[in-house]
């Protein structure tokens, strides 16, 4: 696999506040990599550091297996945090600046505006756009110069459901075209629908990293109730029955090993002397899994 991005032990502080610490992961060519985490978890900081706009306090990163330079930056299209354009310039003029920096053809400007559904607004000043249109303008600027890698930080911010779907389709079409995409988001649905891989950050730490299916799979969970839930959790943990067991409100949630089912769990509880007052099998939502990971 061709490595596009390699991050090693990256750390960044804002004064005494730790934004990220020892974050390490890699992104390979063609992956759609999601960075997931609650607000303030360090997603934007990580992206800002690897794009050279924040200086790291520790660690290192490489793009395209080379030290980062302005030439590697031109192979990347990035939207970080908020759309940053000159409000007194038209969309065309703003994108002309981007095209000049990237040594891209000016023909790209119309294509990008077309993809972002902003062609009719090309002579409108950026400052006169709505928040959703500004976000779409950012998507257009990211596409200038046909970059190999797209970095999108909260790309659906401020978009209505229609715009949300449009952006998702743009991302999927770019992924189909073989581009590597890194998306930071706190919207699980967004990540699940478009990403192949995911890194989960919490308070500046990378707490999980891998394929979406492995980390955030919609696997079955058995919810049971008994009079002594703590003892039951202990017993299940001591057995080889479950991948995971944890209290969930008044229930005990059990993610069984692959070859077992709820009947096996019921039998185990009976043999151990636990009387179950409830047994329910349901798919655990992505949100539940995410909240559990960041708990």
């Amino acid at each position, binding site marked *: 696999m061709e490595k596009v991005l390699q991050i090693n032990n990256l750390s960044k502080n804002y004064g005494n506040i730790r934004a990220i610490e020892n974050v390490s992961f890699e992104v390979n060519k063609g992956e759609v990599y999601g960075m997931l985490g609650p607000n303030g978890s360090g997603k934007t900081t990580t992206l800002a550091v690897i*794009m050279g*706009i*924040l200086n790291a306090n520790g660690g290192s990163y490489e793009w395209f297996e080379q030290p980062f330079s*302005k030439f590697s930056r031109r192979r990347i299209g*990035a939207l970080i945090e908020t759309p940053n354009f*000159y409000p007194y310039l038209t969309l065309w003029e703003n994108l*002309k600046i981007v095209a000049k*920096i990237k040594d891209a053809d000016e023909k790209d400007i119309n294509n990008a505006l077309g993809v972002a559904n902003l062609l009719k607004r090309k002579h409108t000043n950026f400052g006169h756009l709505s928040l959703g249109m500004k976000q779409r303008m950012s998507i257009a600027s990211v596409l200038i110069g046909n970059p190999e890698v797209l970095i999108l930080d909260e790309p659906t911010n401020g978009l209505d459901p229609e715009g949300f779907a449009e952006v998702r389709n743009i991302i999927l079409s770019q992924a189909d075209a073989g581009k590597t995409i890194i998306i930071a988001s706190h919207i699980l649905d967004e990540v699940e629908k478009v990403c192949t891989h995911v890194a989960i950050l919490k308070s500046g730490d990378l707490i999980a990293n891998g394929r979406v299916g492995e980390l955030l799979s919609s696997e079955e969970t058995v919810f049971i109730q008994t009079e002594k839930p703590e003892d039951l959790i202990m017993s299940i943990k001591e057995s080889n029955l479950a991948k995971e067991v944890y209290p969930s409100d008044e229930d005990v949630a059990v993610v069984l090993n692959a070859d077992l089912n709820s009947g096996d769990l019921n039998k185990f509880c009976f043999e151990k002397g636990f009387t179950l007052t409830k047994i329910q099998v349901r798919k655990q939502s992505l949100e539940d899994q995410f909240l559990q990971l960041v708990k």
Partner: protein
Amino acid sequence: MKKLFNLEKIKALSYPPFKTLMIIHFLLFFLVILVVSQLHFTIPGFSIKGLYQFPNIWEFFPWVASWFNIFLTIVLITLVGNEFAYKTFRQNVIDGLDRTDLIKGKLIMILTVALYTFIMVLVAILIFGLIFSKDFSFTIIFENSYLILIYFVQAIGYMTLGLLFAILFRNTALSIILFLVYFPIEGIIRLFFKAEFRAYFPIKIISNLTPRPEFLTMTSEKSYTNASGTSSLDLSEIGIVPENLPLGITVVLAAGYIGFFIALSTILLKRKNL
């Protein structure tokens, strides 16, 4: 360099306040020199018309224009301040510029604006000089013409100091206020130093590049000859240490300060987060 020039061109020429302020600068300069040219008063050994004749005009026009260099610096600070306010410096870096490219772009802007004001003053000198002069011999016309090049250095000096303020404070209004306040503050600070050291402060050095024309002062503070031929009092002869250095040394020191302002701006922009 061409790319950076084109980028700055788009950013500045499409910015309405830039165009407005440049037009105001142009009109103010010509208004002042036109109004002064119409004043009629005579003092023995001095006449207003003499200021508009070669070679005096090479001293007088850059001195008048030097007051408006502060105006140009404010324009420059506004342009740099915008880059921080709109976070476009940061977007330019994301898109593929180096932080040093950002500084180079603004230096190109400074050189372009300095060149504009240089040409404006040069054209004004040639027009008014040819209208008001009586002696059109080559030596008279071009005597002291090098002073306009020194004016060009001064324009760059003020604007590089403005660039430093804009990068240091990252806020247009604050940078402009502090830049303007720095003039009297430096004046006060200078008072705490011995006379021989006062001439080495940055604003003193830069403003002395276009000193008040000698024929408008009573004191001989410069090394070059009194162009109007009027007599003046040399303070050093009566034991007072003049605060101004010879013009050649002033130019060298100004160039040193310009280099220092650029270096410091570059270091600040490289080290601070965008």
